[in-house]
């Protein structure tokens, strides 16, 4: 117990140290005229409220219901998504890759944490963690098992390592039993992980 208690105190003081150091740096940068703290507030707020996996889910649902959009998305995702500024301010270099009965796609960044922020928001901790980054390129089926996903033995697994400024999103397969569903209904089935390739969309209830 005494040891645990000491350990807790240690972690607590480390955390406070980081908080203090971050605050000090922000003050220095503000006084130097490098940043306006109000602009930092606005960036944080955007990622807390506006930019997240719902953006990507809307794009997937549109691709499931609009064959011309799907074709355009797979041909040039940045070009296809740019007119949808209300959904995502995607910018350049987005590549959408399609899951089929034959091929399952997974996205990773083994070197750091490259991730399609404009489509999915900030990456979850696991995506940036050593277990995922180390194993995704070597044992993707083992990684999928950690997510409770099992694929047929003969499905080709294609892992995309994001080693440059190109960014990837997976277009998952539309769940069966959703014929006639609206884009809004379908978007509810699209999970963040299904667009990274570590999950599949939810099924119809």
């Amino acid at each position: 117990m005494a040891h645990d208690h000491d350990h807790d105190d240690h972690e607590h003081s480390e955390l406070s140290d980081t908080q203090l150091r971050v605050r000090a740096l922000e003050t220095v940068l503000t006084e130097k005229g490098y940043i306006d703290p109000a602009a930092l507030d606005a960036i944080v707020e955007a990622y807390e409220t506006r930019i997240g996996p719902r953006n990507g889910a809307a794009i997937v649902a549109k691709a499931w219901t609009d064959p011309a959009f799907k074709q355009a998305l797979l041909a040039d995702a940045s070009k296809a998504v740019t007119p949808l500024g209300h959904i995502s301010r995607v910018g350049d270099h987005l590549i959408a890759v399609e899951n089929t009965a034959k091929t399952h796609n997974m996205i990773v960044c083994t070197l750091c944490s490259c991730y399609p922020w404009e489509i999915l928001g900030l990456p979850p901790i696991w995506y940036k963690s050593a277990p995922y980054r180390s194993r995704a390129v070597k044992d993707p089926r083992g990684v999928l098992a950690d997510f409770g996903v099992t694929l047929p033995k003969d499905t080709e697994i294609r892992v995309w390592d994001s080693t440059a400024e190109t960014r990837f999103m997976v277009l998952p397969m539309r769940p069966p039993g959703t014929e006639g569903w609206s884009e809004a209904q379908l978007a509810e089935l699209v999970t963040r992980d299904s667009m990274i390739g570590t999950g599949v969309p939810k099924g119809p209830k």
Partner: protein
Amino acid sequence: MDGIHDMGGMDGFGKVEVEQNEPPFHEKWEGRVMAMVRAIGANGGLNIDMQRFSRESLPPVVYLESSYYQKWFLALERSMLARGMIGADEIERGHSLHANPPLSRGTFAMKDVERIMTRGSFAREPRAKAAYAVGDRVRTKNIHPATHTRLPRYARDKAGVVERINGCHVFPDTNAHGKGDNPQWLYTVVFDGRELWGPDSDPTLKVSIEAFEPYLDRA
């Protein structure tokens, strides 16, 4: 550099642990760090490749023990110190004590926020035609620069196929060191799992990297 960040294929890190309903930030300071990094980057202080190299250059033990945004913070502080944008005495005091040249695009202010919500372009005008075409067989180079590179260790000296040409982009290997955009053609190169991991590899596995032309030779 052959650093701890280059994790592809390493064993021993264990299971992927998923946090349910994870918030964008777990602590307020994490959001401040993310925003500072974006702001300093966007207004010309440090480019993305400099920031990546600074994170990679953290001592391996620090890299592994620090949380994600701790790494971002430590790397930001280090690279601003190294470039003379801030002083150690200022960090100590928590206040600006010296005059420094402004960022090339000035103070990062409210007017700049919307600009960074749209991802910027890394495409640059090519200086030559692409050396490879889709379908070409290539071999990645066996290189081990002590400087920044985006060719992961597991994919060096491996035979693969050009699958896509993604345009001509800023070359991170020079941009990280302030040596300019040096635009290079960027390809998606796909490898068979067995080429990367040997005969015991999952036979259904294919892995691609985004490879700049200087990383490749014709196979």
